[in-house]
Each structure stands twice: as structure tokens, then as C-alpha cells.
């Protein structure tokens, strides 16, 4: 088990990289997922079809395939995902700005895939708001956007927050795939590095990696439980 102490810096580095991509992907997926959710509940049929199409594609495709498309499809289209080199943001998340594009490709794939699930979690919350609330808002002359903003969404987030948290936890675990798509040095990839290249026994290394993921996911789960309890009291 000495590998946990001897190679602490390697584990810590992997943890930090995984945390970076998860924070970025969570933000991206929440924004994109919200946009897709608005499309799916909009009164305009073509927009609804667009939202439904998005969810059908990305919810039903394996993440590995989405990653393949990002890692091989984007370069084939001549893109290095440079639109993600956002000034300021790339100073904190340094991998965003490097010339090696794989971190950005992996981020694109995680965001596209997770957004479909975020959309459905948000929509389940919207569906939990009684139809009469939106009807009353419409009868007052509120537009679709005002209806969402002032009446429906403030009531829907309570029902959305727990499923949303589960989606984000799943996303953190899904991020373990990125090492296979060219991203060097995330938490999972450290296993390969330490066992194959440096000859450490697998089980202690795997324990170290598991601890890394649990540090991210367990507090998130505990937070969700707290929110749920508080809601139960309020009800």
C-alpha cells in the first residue's frame, strides 16, 4: 500500500485533472441541458422536435461512441475545439488552453452526453408543477418565457435537484473514460501509468483511485440527501 504515500503526487494530480473536467462539464451540461429542456417544452413544434431529437440521440448513444466522435470527428471536420479556449477560464483550467486538444474533445463529449440527461431531469421537475399554475400564468397574459421564469421554474427546481445531482454523480464516474481518448493524467489514467509503466500492484492503486472518486461523489450525494430532507420537512 506504500504506493498511496510514495505516489501521492500522482494521485493528487489525477484527482485535480478529473475535478477540473468534471466542474467544466457540469457547468456546460447544466447550461446546454437547460437550453434543450426549454426547447422540449416550448410551444413551437419545430423547436420541440429539435429538443426531442437531441435527447434521443445523446441519451441513447454509448458515451464511448460520443467520445469517439469528439476525438476523431472534430479533427476530421478541421476543429480542435478551440472555441473552448475561453480567455480567463483557461488560466484556471490550464488544460483548456494547451495545444493538445484531447482535454477539450473529452469535455465536448461529456457535455453533449450529459446535457441530454440534465434536460430530462429538469423536465421531470417542470412536469411536477401542477398544470394549473402555468394555465393561470397564461391566462394573465404572461408569455412563454415569463411563465417559465416567474411561475414554473421557481417551483420546478425542488423536484429537479435530486435527479440532477444523480446525473452529475454519474457524469463524474463517466469521466473515467477520458483517459482512453487521449487525455493524459486524469484519475483513471494514473492507474495505467502506475501499474503498466511503473509496475505497482493493481489493487492498492485501484483503492487509491476509488478514494479519489469517492471524495468527489460522496459529499455530493450527502448534499442531495440534505436537500431532500429539508424539502420533506417543508412539505
Amino acid at each position, binding site marked *: 500500500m506504500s504506493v498511496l504515500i510514495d505516489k501521492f503526487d500522482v494521485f493528487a494530480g489525477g484527482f485535480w485533472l478529473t475535478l477540473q473536467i468534471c466542474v467544466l462539464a457540469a457547468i456546460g451540461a447544466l447550461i446546454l441541458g437547460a437550453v434543450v429542456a426549454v426547447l422540449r417544452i416550448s410551444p413551437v413544434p419545430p423547436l420541440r422536435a429539435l429538443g426531442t431529437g437531441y435527447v434521443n440521440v445523446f441519451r441513447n448513444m454509448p458515451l464511448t461512441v460520443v467520445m469517439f466522435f469528439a476525438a476523431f470527428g472534430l479533427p476530421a471536420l478541421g476543429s480542435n475545439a478551440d472555441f473552448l479556449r475561453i480567455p480567463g477560464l483557461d488560466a484556471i483550467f490550464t488544460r483548456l488552453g494547451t495545444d493538445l486538444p484531447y482535454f477539450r474533445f473529452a469535455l465536448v463529449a461529456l457535455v453533449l452526453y450529459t446535457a441530454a440527461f440534465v434536460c430530462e431531469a429538469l423536465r421531470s421537475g417542470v412536469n411536477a408543477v401542477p398544470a394549473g399554475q402555468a394555465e*393561470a400564468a397564461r391566462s*394573465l397574459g404572461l408569455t412563454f418565457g415569463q411563465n417559465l421564469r416567474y411561475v414554473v421554474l421557481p417551483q420546478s427546481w425542488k423536484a429537479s435537484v435530486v435527479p440532477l445531482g444523480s446525473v452529475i454523480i454519474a457524469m463524474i464516474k463517466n469521466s473515467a473514460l477520458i483517459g482512453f481518448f487521449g487525455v493524459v493524467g486524469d484519475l483513471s489514467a494514473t492507474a495505467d501509468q502506475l501499474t503498466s509503466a511503473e509496475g505497482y500492484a493493481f489493487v492498492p492503486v485501484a483503492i487509491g483511485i476509488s478514494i479519489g472518486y469517492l471524495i468527489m461523489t460522496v459529499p455530493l450525494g450527502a448534499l442531495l440527501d440534505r436537500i431532500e430532507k429539508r424539502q420533506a420537512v417543508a412539505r
Partner: protein
Amino acid sequence: MTTGEPLIVLDSVNKWFGPLHVLDDVSLSVGKGEVVVVIGPSGSGKSTLCRTINRLEPINSGTITFDGQPLPAEGKALAKLRSEVGMVFQSFNLFAHKTILDNVTLGPIKVRKEKPAAARERALALLDRVGIANQADKFPAQLSGGQQQRAAIARALAMQPKAMLFDEPTSALDPEMVGEVLEVMTSLARDGMTMVVVTHEMGFARHAANRVIFMADGQLVEDAPPAEFFGNPRSERAKDFLSKILTH
């Protein structure tokens, strides 16, 4: 009170829910200041009729005009029309996450872009008018059904509508609270508000309505002043309906 000038006109309106013909060639004209009470057995289409007037239910054929304008399709123009037609629901539908005062001021502030202070002042006056000014800072769930429905009426009135639609406003209330809501509605009628009221309250129909509409199976069967309708119904369906509700 009535000027005779039509405000709401339905012409040969048809609507289906799947195979069910809920509105069967309904034509109806409601004049400015007129109070029309719609009665009939459940499933007769009276609630649907009420909800088509502000297009909460779209229709399959026929035309509906409000204040001379045909009902617009979904969008800004429809939102504007809805802001001019107040609606009161059976289940109140007050915004559960907002105080009573915020319920009443939301429309004026967001739709009419009124100044919050002015909207608030008018909202308080309206809440006072419906007798619940002291409940302004509470949430809907803290009020009784009768108080909630009166708040919902104040919310609709805050938009200064040209007409008010009531979709069974007292059907979800405990019996002892029906009176307080009907009282508010009666005073509105007396002040000259144009009203379409779907209800089972025959007392209200008798003393507050200018006309009573009787519906059955999606059709408009009778259209008469209340004294005539209750004293001398012409159709068998209406006689049958009245005998069932007036005998006990």
C-alpha cells in the same frame, strides 16, 4: 347595464377531444356588461366553452371574436388578449411560491410593465375589496379555499380586464365558503363587469345573471333570461336537469 354591443362572439364553434364532440356547433354572443351563466350536466362542454374564450382550449372549427378581433394564434398577440380577459379557475391556481400580494401584482408588473409601487397599491385596494387585505403577506396554502378564490378574483381584476371568465369558481369550496365568493361575484356583476360564469349555483344564476345558457352533450340547448329559464324551461333536457337539482 348591458349596452347590447357584443364583446364575445362565438360562431359555429366545434371542438373534439379525440372522438368526443365536446362543442357541437356552438354560437353565442355576450354583450358588454352582460352576465351570462352557463349551466348543464357534467360533461356537457360548459367548462370547455369557457376555456375556449381565452384560447386555453383551441377549437377545431368556427370563429371566436373578442372585442371585434378574432382570437390570435399562440404568441404575443394572444398573450395580450389573455391579459384583457380575467379567468378564475375551479382550483384557484394561485401561484404557490408567491404571497397573495405578489400573486396579484405579478401580471400588472410583468405584463403591463406597471411600477411596482403603483401595482402594489392597486393590489391592496383590490384585496380590500374582496375582503382579504389582512392576508396579503401570506402564502396561498395558508388561506382557506374561500379566501384563496377571492384572492384569485383579485389577481384577475388587477389586470383591469374587459371581461371575466369563471370556470366553476365555487365547486371546490366547502359549503360555508361558497357565499363569500358569490358575494364578490355578485358585486362585480352589479358594477357592470362582463362575465361568463360556469356554475352549479342556481341562486346566483337567478339573481345575478342577465341570461342563462343551458348546455347538454356539447350543444347549446337553451338561452333565456333566468326567470324564463327557471320558470318555464322549453326543452326536455332542461326540465329533466332542473327537476334533478331543484327537488332537494
